[in-house]
C-alpha cells in the first residue's frame, strides 16, 4: 500500500510543470464534505515546496504542483495521510481523456445551438405574429435573412456530432439514427434558404436549430453521465493500485508503482501481499492462494523455479520473484486468445435505437417521396409540392424518436451509479434487460473475495476482541480475517510477529499467542475439520480459542438468489474450484445446476451451449479464469474486487460486499427497456398524428416547433418516471459506501 511509511518512487506519475516544478494528480479517498476542500487544500498549501493545490469535488481528485527541489510526492502523500486523507497517485486513462474532450465538445455545440435557437426564435415569433397582423414583406425577408445568417453557421458547427456519425454510419453500410436527423436538418435549411430567396412566407430555420438543441441536450446528458461513471471507476483503479517492492541494483528494496515494473526486474513479495506481476520464483518457499486466477480455493505450495501469476495472494513466506514479460504466461495467453474469439459475438448486438432507425428512416423517406408525387399529380406547382414534402420530413424528424432511448439511459445509469453500479458499455442496459439465465462464478463472486472466520459466534467476546487486536499487527491473510472481527481494533503496543508462525504480545502480564497449533503449544487436531478450512489458535494462559477460517458466502447471497428465482431467472454455477467445494454451497443457495473443476475454455463452452439453446446468459464473475466467459456471455457483471482483466470485459462493475446489485441492475434494466419501448410508442403515435397533417399541407413552422418541443418533453418526462432501486442504507451517501468498501475490501 502506498500509505505505508516506506518511501515510494512516484516519478512515473509526475509530469514537468515548468522550470523546476512538477505536477501530480492524486485520487483522494474519503472526501465527503465541503469542509474537506478547505482542509485538504489548506494542508497542502502550507506544506513546504507546494506551488498550488486544487481539489476537484466532482471527481475527488487533487491536482498538485510542487517545486522539485523542495518537495517529494511521496512525502506530500504522507502529509495528507496524517491529516486523515488517503491519497493515491493517479494517471488519467486515455479513454477517460477522450471522454472528457468529447463532453466539452458537446457542451460547446450545445451552447452554440442554444444561442442560435434563442435568437432565431425571437425573429420567428415576430414573423408568426406579423403574418396574422400587418408585417410588410420587406420586414419578413429581413428577418428571414437574419435567421439564415445565424442558423447556417450555427448548424454547421453544432450539427457536427450528427453529421460525423451519419457519414461514419453510411460508410460502414449501417443506417443509424443520425442519418435521418442529418438529412432532415440539411433539407430544412436548404428549403428555408430557397423560401427566403423567393420571398416565401414560411422558413424553417427555427425548426432545424431547435431540433439540434434538443438532441444535443440529450447527448450531452448521456455523455456527462458516462464521464462521471468513468471518473469514479478510474479512482477505484487508483485506490486499488498496489506497489511492488523491487530490488535496486545494490540489493536495497524500493517501492514502485506496479505499472513501472519491467521484465527481468526482481521483486520481493511479502506475506499478505498480492503478487504484482507474472514471474518465476527465484528464492523462498510459501503457499499462495490463486483463487482469483483459477477459482481454486486450496492453497498451492510454491518452490524456487515455479511460475507465479499476478493476483495470487502470498501467505506464509517472503518470495523473491523475477518478473517475466506480460503475455508470456501460458494461462494469460490462453485467456487473451479466448477473449478475442468471444468478444466478436457481442459486437454483433444491434441497439434498440438503431433497430428503430432502420425501420423508421426508409418509411419516412418513402412517405415524403409519396407526398411529393401525390401533390404533383393533384396539380400543385412543383414549388408547393416540394415544400410540403420537405415539411413531412421536418415534422417527422426523429426528435422524440432520437430522445426516446437516451433519455431513459441517462436516468437509468444515474440510478445505477448512485446504487454503486458502474456501467461500462452503453448498450449494456438493453442487453441486461433480455437476460433469462444467470451464471455465477463461485469464488470471489458468490463468496467473499477473502477468507472469513466462520465460527465467531462460538468464541467468548473478550477472547474475540483480544484476538482481533493481536491479529491487527500482522499482514498474514488469516490474521487479517481475525482482525476483521472487530472494526478498528487497536494493535497491542508490544506485539511481535514470528514469521510463518504467529503473533505474540504480553497482555495483563501473561503472554498471549495467536497462530499455528505448534506456535500456541496446542495439540494438532485434524480429521474433524473440512479440507478447505484453515485453523488458527489463540492462547492466553489457560484460556484458548480456535478460529475456523474459510471463504464464506456474501451476506445476502441467499436472499438475492431467492429474489432472482422469484423473478423467473434460471440460476447456475460454473466454478473453477473442485466439485466437492462447489456442491455444498450450491445446496445452501438452492441452485441445482452447479459444476466445478472447469477451466476457462470449458466455461465458454458451457455458455455457448446455453446460447445455442436460445438462452440469454448473464455471467457474474471476478477471476482471470472468468474473463473469457464474461466476454462470451450476452451480458456480464463483475464485483469491484475482480481482477483487472475481468473488469475490462464486464458490462458493469458493482461496489460493496453485497450481491444485491446483480438483482438491482436487472430490475433497472427491465424497467429501462419498458420505458424505452413506451417512449418509442409515444414517438410513433406522435408521427401518426403529425404525418397526415403534414401530408395534407397544414404544417406551418409554428406547428412544427410546437409539435417537436411537445413530443420531446413528453418523452423526457416519461423517462423520469423510473423508480430508483432501494439502496442498502438509504441515508448513507455514495461516497461513504465507496470509503467503507475501499477500506474493507480492496485491502485484502
Amino acid at each position, binding site marked *: 500500500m502506498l500509505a505505508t511509511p516506506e518511501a515510494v518512487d512516484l516519478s512515473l506519475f509526475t509530469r514537468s510543470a515548468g522550470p523546476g516544478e512538477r505536477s501530480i494528480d492524486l485520487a483522494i479517498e474519503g472526501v465527503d464534505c465541503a469542509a474537506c476542500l478547505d482542509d485538504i487544500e489548506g494542508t497542502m498549501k*502550507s506544506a513546504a515546496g507546494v506551488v498550488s493545490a486544487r481539489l476537484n469535488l466532482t471527481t475527488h481528485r487533487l491536482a498538485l504542483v510542487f517545486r522539485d527541489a523542495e518537495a517529494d510526492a511521496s512525502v506530500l502523500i504522507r502529509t495528507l495521510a496524517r491529516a486523515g486523507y488517503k491519497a493515491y497517485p493517479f494517471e488519467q486513462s486515455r479513454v477517460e481523456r477522450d471522454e472528457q474532450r468529447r463532453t466539452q465538445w458537446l457542451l460547446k455545440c450545445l451552447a452554440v445551438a442554444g444561442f442560435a435557437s434563442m435568437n432565431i426564435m425571437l425573429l420567428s415569433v415576430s414573423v408568426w405574429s406579423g403574418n396574422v397582423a400587418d408585417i410588410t414583406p420587406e420586414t419578413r425577408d429581413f428577418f428571414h435573412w*437574419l435567421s439564415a445568417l445565424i442558423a447556417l453557421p450555427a448548424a454547421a458547427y453544432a450539427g457536427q456530432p450528427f453529421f460525423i456519425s451519419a457519414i461514419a454510419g453510411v460508410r460502414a453500410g449501417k443506417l443509424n439514427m443520425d442519418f435521418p436527423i442529418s438529412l432532415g436538418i440539411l433539407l430544412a435549411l436548404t428549403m428555408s434558404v430557397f423560401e427566403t430567396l423567393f420571398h416565401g412566407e414560411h422558413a424553417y430555420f427555427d425548426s432545424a436549430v431547435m431540433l439540434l438543441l434538443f438532441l444535443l441536450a440529450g447527448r450531452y446528458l448521456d455523455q456527462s453521465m458516462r464521464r462521471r461513471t468513468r471518473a469514479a471507476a478510474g479512482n477505484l483503479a487508483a485506490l486499488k493500485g498496489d506497489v511492488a517492492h523491487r530490488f535496486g541494483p545494490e540489493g536495497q528494496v524500493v517501492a514502485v508503482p506496479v505499472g513501472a515494473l519491467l521484465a527481468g526486474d526482481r521483486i520481493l513479495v511479502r506475506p499478505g501481499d498480492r503478487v504484482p506481476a507474472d514471474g518465476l520464483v527465484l528464492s523462498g518457499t510459501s503457499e499462495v492462494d490463486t483463487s482469483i486466477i483459477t477459482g481454486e480455493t486450496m492453497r498451492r505450495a510454491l518452490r524456487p523455479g515455479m511460475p507465479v501469476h499476478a493476483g495470487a495472494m502470498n501467505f506464509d513466506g517472503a518470495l523473491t520473484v523475477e518478473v517475466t514479460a506480460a503475455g508470456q504466461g501460458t494461462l494469460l495467453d490462453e485467456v487473451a486468445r479466448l477473449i478475442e474469439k468471444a468478444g466478436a459475438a457481442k459486437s454483433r448486438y444491434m441497439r434498440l435505437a438503431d433497430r428503430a432507425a432502420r425501420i423508421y428512416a426508409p418509411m419516412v423517406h418513402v412517405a415524403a417521396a409519396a407526398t411529393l408525387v401525390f401533390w404533383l399529380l393533384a396539380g400543385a406547382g412543383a414549388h408547393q409540392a416540394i415544400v410540403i414534402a420537405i415539411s413531412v420530413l421536418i415534422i417527422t424528424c426523429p426528435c422524440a424518436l432520437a430522445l426516446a432511448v437516451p433519455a431513459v439511459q441517462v436516468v437509468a445509469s444515474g440510478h445505477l451509479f448512485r446504487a454503486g453500479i458502474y456501467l461500462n458499455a452503453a448498450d449494456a442496459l438493453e442487453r441486461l434487460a433480455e437476460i433469462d439465465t444467470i451464471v455465477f462464478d463461485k469464488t470471489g463472486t458468490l463468496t467473499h473475495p477473502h477468507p472469513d472466520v466462520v465460527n465467531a459466534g462460538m468464541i467468548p467476546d473478550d477472547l474475540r476482541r483480544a484476538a482481533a487486536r493481536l491479529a491487527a499487527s500482522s499482514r498474514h491473510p488469516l490474521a487479517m480475517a481475525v482482525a476483521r472481527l472487530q472494526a478498528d481494533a487497536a494493535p497491542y503496543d508490544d506485539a511481535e510477529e514470528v514469521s510463518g508462525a504467529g503473533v505474540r504480545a504480553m497482555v495483563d502480564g501473561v503472554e498471549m499467542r495467536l497462530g499455528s497449533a505448534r506456535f500456541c503449544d496446542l495439540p494438532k487436531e485434524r480429521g474433524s475439520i473440512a479440507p478447505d478450512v484453515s485453523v488458527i489458535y489463540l492462547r492466553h494462559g489457560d484460556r484458548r480459542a480456535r478460529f475456523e477460517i474459510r471463504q464464506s458466502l456474501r451476506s445476502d447471497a441467499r436472499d438475492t438468489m431467492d429474489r432472482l428465482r422469484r423473478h423467473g431467472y434460471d440460476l447456475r454455477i460454473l466454478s473453477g474450484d473442485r466439485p466437492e467445494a462447489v456442491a455444498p454451497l450450491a445446496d445452501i443457495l438452492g441452485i441445482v445446476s452447479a459444476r466445478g473443476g472447469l477451466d476457462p475454455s470449458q466455461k465458454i463452452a458451457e455458455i455457448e451451449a446455453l446460447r445455442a439453446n436460445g438462452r440469454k446468459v448473464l455471467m457474474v464473475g471476478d477471476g482471470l479464469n472468468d474473463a473469457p466467459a464474461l466476454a462470451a456471455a450476452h451480458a456480464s457483471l463483475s464485483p469491484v474486487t475482480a481482477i483487472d482483466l475481468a473488469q475490462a470485459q464486464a458490462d458493469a462493475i458493482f461496489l460493496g460486499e453485497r450481491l444485491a446489485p446483480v438483482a438491482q441492475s436487472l430490475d433497472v434494466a427491465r424497467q429501462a427497456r419498458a420505458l424505452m419501448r413506451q417512449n418509442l410508442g409515444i414517438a410513433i403515435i406522435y408521427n401518426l398524428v403529425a404525418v397526415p397533417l403534414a401530408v395534407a399541407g397544414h404544417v406551418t413552422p409554428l406547428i412544427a416547433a410546437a409539435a417537436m418541443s411537445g413530443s420531446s418533453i413528453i418523452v423526457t418526462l416519461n423517462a423520469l418516471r423510473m423508480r430508483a432501486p432501494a439502496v442498502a442504507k438509504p441515508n448513507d451517501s455514495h461516497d461513504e459506501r465507496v470509503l467503507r468498501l475501499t477500506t474493507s475490501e480492496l485491502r485484502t
Partner: protein
Amino acid sequence: MNILVYLVPTALGLGLLALTAFMWSLKNGQYDDVEGTAYRILSDDDVEEDIERKRERRR
C-alpha cells in the same frame, strides 16, 4: 422599421457576447468541477491576511 436596424443587431451582439463569455469560461475550466465551485465561494482563503494567519497558526 428603421428602429429595427439598430435594435436587432444590438440584440444579436448581446447574445454573441454571452456566447463568447460562455466559451471563455468553458475553456477556462470553470465547468470542470461544478460541485466544488458551489462551496468554494464560501471559503475566505483568497483573503491575503487570512492565509497568513493560517500559516502562523500551523507554525
